[in-house]
């Protein structure tokens, strides 16, 4: 993409653009910012902006969104069609991408204090109408990209808020744990994207865990396709069963973990296992899922996981997070153990005191020990 004023801007050295990006009026700032980004993107190095990102970021709490139209081609980002201060357009995909990015930004900002996907006010760029009959949406490390679907199996991908939340969450993962997109760590990457994609939707509707549908991609399947969504966090493997699409392949338990070369080692398939653990936790705890279950998961993603994390390591990390946030041996921590047990992951962590007096670490219950009783839904904690 290039505009005549950006051609002028790109011959300016970065230190001048940097000054313009912070000291100029908003339009100058935006143009300088785009020039720096375009130059960095041309070098394939959006990350190079790292140290300058803080200077280029907006004030905390201000979102900045741009939507582009690829006009059924595959050149990114495409033609700029809506900026942050622009009114609604006549193109429903453009408006959906714009609104969905806004809802996702607001969710992370309001609930977890996170300023955009990088935590530093990164602008949210979306391209719609990518490709022809493109049955997909993806994140490319810098922006979201949405297809229109083929109309036969899939509708346009911007119409599901959880899809938009899912894509943006891949950005959050990128700028936090950086989970490698392969095998177990890749399935965890997908899992966090599904979890927070679903929570964005639940937050927008102010739904409690028991009222939420826990579906990803509801409304994506075209009329006539036998299915309710692409995935179900609550009941993996049940979202669809159709002659054209096949059957939802997601497992709900470790015993059905799929080893495959397809799909980067089945990242969209095996994510069903941790997805069910999360939905189970949220249901046990009750109330709004983003408040406790989501908080534990956010803490885990942003402060504990490493790039090559396994399901086991993730489970253990969520247990530690629950202890740190809600106390050792808290109902939340016990519920985390319970939730992972239902999908066949036994924690390796015992009763570890995270805060407070040090106590001897007890070993995990032996296989002969009875399973802990199922916890009844807890009343939501009162807000401080």
């Amino acid at each position: 993409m290039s505009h005549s004023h950006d051609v002028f801007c790109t011959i300016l050295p970065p230190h001048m653009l940097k000054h313009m990006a912070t000291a100029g009026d908003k339009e100058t700032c935006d143009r300088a910012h785009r020039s720096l980004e375009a130059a960095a993107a041309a070098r394939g190095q959006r990350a190079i902006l790292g140290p300058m990102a803080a200077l280029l970021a907006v004030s905390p709490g201000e979102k900045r969104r741009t939507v582009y139209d690829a006009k059924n081609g595959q050149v990114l980002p495409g033609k700029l069609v809506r900026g942050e201060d622009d009114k609604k357009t006549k193109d429903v995909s453009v408006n959906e991408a714009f609104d969905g990015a806004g809802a996702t930004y607001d969710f992370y900002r309001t609930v977890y204090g996170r300023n955009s996907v990088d935590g530093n006010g990164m602008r949210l760029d979306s391209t719609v109408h990518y490709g022809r009959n493109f049955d997909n949406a993806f994140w490319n490390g810098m922006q979201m990209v949405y297809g229109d679907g083929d109309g036969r199996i899939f509708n346009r991908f911007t119409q599901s808020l959880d899809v938009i939340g899912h894509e943006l969450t891949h950005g959050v993962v990128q700028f936090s744990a950086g989970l490698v997109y392969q095998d177990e760590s890749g399935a965890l990457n997908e899992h966090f994207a599904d979890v927070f994609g679903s929570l964005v939707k639940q937050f927008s509707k102010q739904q409690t865990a028991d009222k939420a549908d826990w579906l990803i991609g509801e409304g994506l399947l075209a009329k006539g396709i036998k299915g309710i969504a692409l995935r179900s966090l609550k009941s993996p493997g049940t979202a669809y069963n159709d002659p054209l699409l096949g059957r939802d392949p997601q497992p709900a338990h470790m015993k059905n973990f799929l080893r495959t070369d397809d799909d980067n080692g089945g990242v969209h398939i095996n994510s069903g296992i941790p997805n069910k653990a999360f939905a189970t936790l949220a249901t046990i705890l009750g109330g709004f899922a983003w408040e406790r279950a989501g908080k534990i998961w956010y803490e885990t993603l942003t402060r504990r996981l490493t790039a090559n994390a396994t399901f086991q390591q993730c489970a253990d990390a969520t247990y530690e997070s629950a202890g740190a946030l809600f106390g050792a041996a808290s109902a939340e921590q016990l519920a985390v153990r319970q939730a992972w047990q239902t999908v066949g992951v036994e924690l390796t962590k015992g009763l570890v005191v995270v805060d407070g007096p040090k106590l001897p670490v007890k070993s995990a219950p032996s296989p002969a020990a009875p399973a802990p009783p199922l916890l009844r839904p807890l009343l939501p904690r009162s807000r401080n």
Partner: protein
Amino acid sequence: MKVGFHRSGGFAGLSLKSEVDCSQLPPGKCKELEQLVGLLRAAGQPAPSPSKSSYYADAFQYEVTVQDDDGTQKYRAGDGEMSPEMEKVVDWLTAHARG
């Protein structure tokens, strides 16, 4: 000429596979495919495997296998990382696989 096509990954994690035997296609369609494959070959060495960068997520991964008298060649690429020649072959094969 036979062309194998495998698309995997994507947001839905679905697999799409097809085998095209040019000799079984209507002559016009066969010529169309041969031209596109010819451009792909002329573009240079088969594309390397798409980067498994952790930054790409939900992108489709494509593998095109061409078999003819010149031997067998594999071409791999992912959404957002394809040459224009690969894009055209993938578009053609996707439309054909969907029926």
